[in-house]
């Protein structure tokens, strides 16, 4: 293998020199050929690999749109011109950027240009006999010479051939391919090493292509489901939906999924920073496919797979059930409202809004926090000290006016645009603070009331389909298998020559092979077996 590498290195060096001399006549085609030979050298592949490693790093230092567009926007807000500059050079979309793509595409081209000739060469090598022995064997990394015992027989010639027969048999038994010549046996083993190496490189190409294709033909969507709700797999049921370019969203596989109940437990025993950490998230769901119901437990590491679509548990939280009444006592809003937990808070302090568009006259809106286990901290502030529902508490402020729902601008259900609204105030003119424990009701200043009925739980699920996953798995297995063969199968050539009873054994490693000398020693020992005194030979062979 090393030899081949050298060959690949020499060629471009030559044509490179030529290019500088005969540049004017090179022409477009010549330029292309030159670029191609350059690109397919090991040196360039190596440089591209190093550049790829380097290019992948910024994506871990800066927020990326594929992960968290919100953080990208925040970064842009805080960094002005510098942020805009980074955005212009695609630093927030590193892995789909022009420059990152260019690097790995060049690498892929280089890979193809490397695989094709090597495959041809290997194919030929596998079908031709091992090369004959070079004239001088003494310089090989593994070498031994000794006098064959059969030398005393009546005919030297017959004895020599018998010796070669036995060498051939031995080598064959250890998996060598044989080329028998008049005065020597040439043998080679370990073709699988190069096969493995080629499989590895081809599988890498496969994996990269699969990754690209997978994103075209799959989709990914999100949905929040409150206990008791049912999800029907159709476009309108998704909170967000990102199809690949070639995904046909009209043909989503049909199924329904109902969240029956969700249980979460948190650690109230452990010490230090482990206190309050989550310990289990179990969602009991029922799936319906073709009218058939099936119960599953959906967990963080146990997605539910229905009809080729995977449903993954990615989040959870609380949805306080709140009833709002108008001045006449009519219910204008009721039911669970999804509150989003603050990611960093182990106590699950959650924020949410309640919009009441249907109240007579003006619209109402409420913004607040939900505390699963409300406690006062040292400063007298209300905080949540634990994530389970031990002392659920709702703290909100209220607004009246125009919610802006008819403005045509799409609105988040989790935030309130209070621009055209006025904050409710209490009798003394201070902003109204609504504080409710479970079951409590508070009157609103303009008549009407808010009631905190109870709490339901909800889950956030990712729903996605990637038809290329199986192919990816196969590629990955081939990568690993090819690599194992290519790094650990020793490839070596062995020659056994005899002339008038003087035997020579030599071995040459092709690629890494710490065992060449040992292989020669073993073979010599085997060939000299008939001799009684075994001890003296080893040192002979070592030399």
């Amino acid at each position, binding site marked *: 293998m090393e030899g081949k590498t050298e060959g690949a*290195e020499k060629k471009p060096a030559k044509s490179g020199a030529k290019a500088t001399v005969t540049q004017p006549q090179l022409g477009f085609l010549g330029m292309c050929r030159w670029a191609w030979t350059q690109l397919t050298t090991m040196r360039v592949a*190596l440089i591209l690999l190093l550049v790829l490693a380097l290019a992948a790093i910024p994506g*871990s230092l800066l927020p990326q749109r*594929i992960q968290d567009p919100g953080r990208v926007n925040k970064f842009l807000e805080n960094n002005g011109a510098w942020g805009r500059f980074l955005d212009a050079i695609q630093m927030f979309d590193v892995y789909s950027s022009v420059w990152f793509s260019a690097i790995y595409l060049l690498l892929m081209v280089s890979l193809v240009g490397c695989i094709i000739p090597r495959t041809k060469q290997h194919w030929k090598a596998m079908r031709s006999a091992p090369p004959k022995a070079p004239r001088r064997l003494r310089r090989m990394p593994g070498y031994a010479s000794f006098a064959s015992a059969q030398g005393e027989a009546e005919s030297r010639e017959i004895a020599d051939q018998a010796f070669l027969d036995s060498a051939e048999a031995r080598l064959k038994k250890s998996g060598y391919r044989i080329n028998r010549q008049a005065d020597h046996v040439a043998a080679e083993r370990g073709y699988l090493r190069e096969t493995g190496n080629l499989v590895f490189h081809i599988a890498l190409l496969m994996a990269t292509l699969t990754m690209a294709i997978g994103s075209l033909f799959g989709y990914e969507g999100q949905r929040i489901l409150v206990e008791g709700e049912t999800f029907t797999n159709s476009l309108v049921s998704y909170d967000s939906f990102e199809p690949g370019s070639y995904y046909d969203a009209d043909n989503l596989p049909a199924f329904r999924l109902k969240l029956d109940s969700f249980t979460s437990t948190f650690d109230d025993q*452990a010490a230090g920073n482990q206190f309050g950490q989550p310990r289990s998230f179990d969602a009991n769901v029922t799936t319906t496919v073709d009218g058939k119901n099936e119960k599953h437990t959906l967990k963080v590491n146990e997605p539910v797979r229905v009809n080729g679509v995977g449903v993954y548990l990615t989040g959870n939280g609380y949805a306080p059930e709140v009833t709002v009444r108008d001045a006449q006592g009519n219910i204008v809003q009721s039911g669970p409202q999804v509150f989003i937990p603050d990611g960093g808070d182990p106590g699950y302090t959650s924020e949410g809004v309640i919009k009441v568009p249907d109240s007579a006259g003006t619209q109402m809106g409420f913004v607040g926090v939900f505390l699963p286990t409300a406690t006062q901290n040292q400063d007298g502030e209300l905080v949540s000290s634990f994530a389970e529902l031990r002392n659920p508490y709702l703290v909100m402020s209220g607004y009246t006016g125009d919610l802006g729902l008819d403005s045509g601008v799409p609105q988040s259900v989790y935030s309130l645009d209070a621009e055209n609204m006025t904050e409710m105030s209490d009798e003394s003119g201070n902003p109204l603070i609504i504080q409710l424990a479970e079951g409590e009701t508070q009157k609103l200043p303009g008549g009407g009331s808010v009631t905190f009925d109870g709490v339901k739980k909800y889950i956030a699920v990712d729903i996605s389909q990637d038809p290329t996953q199986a192919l990816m798995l196969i590629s990955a297995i081939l990568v690993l298998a090819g690599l194992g063969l290519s*790094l650990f199968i020793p490839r070596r050539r062995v020659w056994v020559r005899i002339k008038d009873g003087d035997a020579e054994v030599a071995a040459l490693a092709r690629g890494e092979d*710490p065992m060449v000398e040992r292989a020669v020693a073993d073979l010599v020992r085997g060939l000299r077996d008939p001799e009684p005194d075994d001890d003296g030979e080893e040192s002979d062979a070592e030399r």
Partner: protein
Amino acid sequence: MDVNTDLAMWSNQLIISAMIVYAFAMIFYAFDLFGSRELKASQTAVGSTARPSSVRRTNRKTASTAVLDRPGDDDSAAPAPSTRKNRRRGARIGTSLLVLAVLLHAAAVLTRALSVARVPWGNMMEYVLTATTITVIVYLVVLIKKDVRYLGTFVSGGVLLCLGLAITVFYTPAAKLIPALDSYWIAIHVPIAILSTALLYISAILAVFQILKSVHETKDPKWLRFMHRLPASTDLERTSYTIAAVGFITWTFTLIAGAIWAEVAWSRYWGWDSKEIWTFVVWVIYAAYLHARATRGWGPTKVAVLNLIGIASVIFNFTVVNVYFNGLHSYSGLD
């Protein structure tokens, strides 16, 4: 939630005991490596620090680890011209102490695992605890095949440093797993990652020795005199490469297993999460290392430098990425 705090406390005690023994192992190994320019001097140095009674004790221990040492001695006979019988007492004692230390260390891992009734790698402290054990075991396994006792100082020293960090900066009380980690994939993905780290670390120390040795071979500066008995730099290079090659395969497995786990947990096998990015970066650097070795124009020293860049990225992946980068993989157990 049924965490056995007694066992967890025992585990902490065992860590401290192991650290003490590692410290002694390091000192003896260091004597062997640096202090033996004049053979006699090293012997008296060892003799004077140990009281007669303890000398007898260590002798007995040496006998029990002689199995470990013997094949190595054979091996080193080739590169190092004179390996006299009584030489290298420091290294022998070092190895014996290291075996003792790793037993205590393994017991610490075991008690920690038992205290929480799960695999002992749920947070950074536990990861370090296990990774260091595996590093010492890898070293001892390599020792059976080859005399690499010149690495002893840096194996015991590195492990000592890591354990020190584990019980201070990374300290995390014993507790159950968070749901995100509660999967059988943790038992597949993480131990192989740990094994890779151990292999790549040992390969990297060898790479450092290789570079120093080649300086010793060409320029022979005074401060590198102690290297005279190390194997030739080509030999060191080959050992370093072989171990890194194994490490690369296990790292490839880590990456693939991680991707499969990511699909199960997050609905996609690859999403360029910061941990995924760095696992990829590490992988590409070592791929480059393997390529460089087969590329003309890249001498062994340059290749060894790539190996060192590789280990630097492994360490960065474990420390900085875990602690400071936010991503889905926030399992450091730190706040």
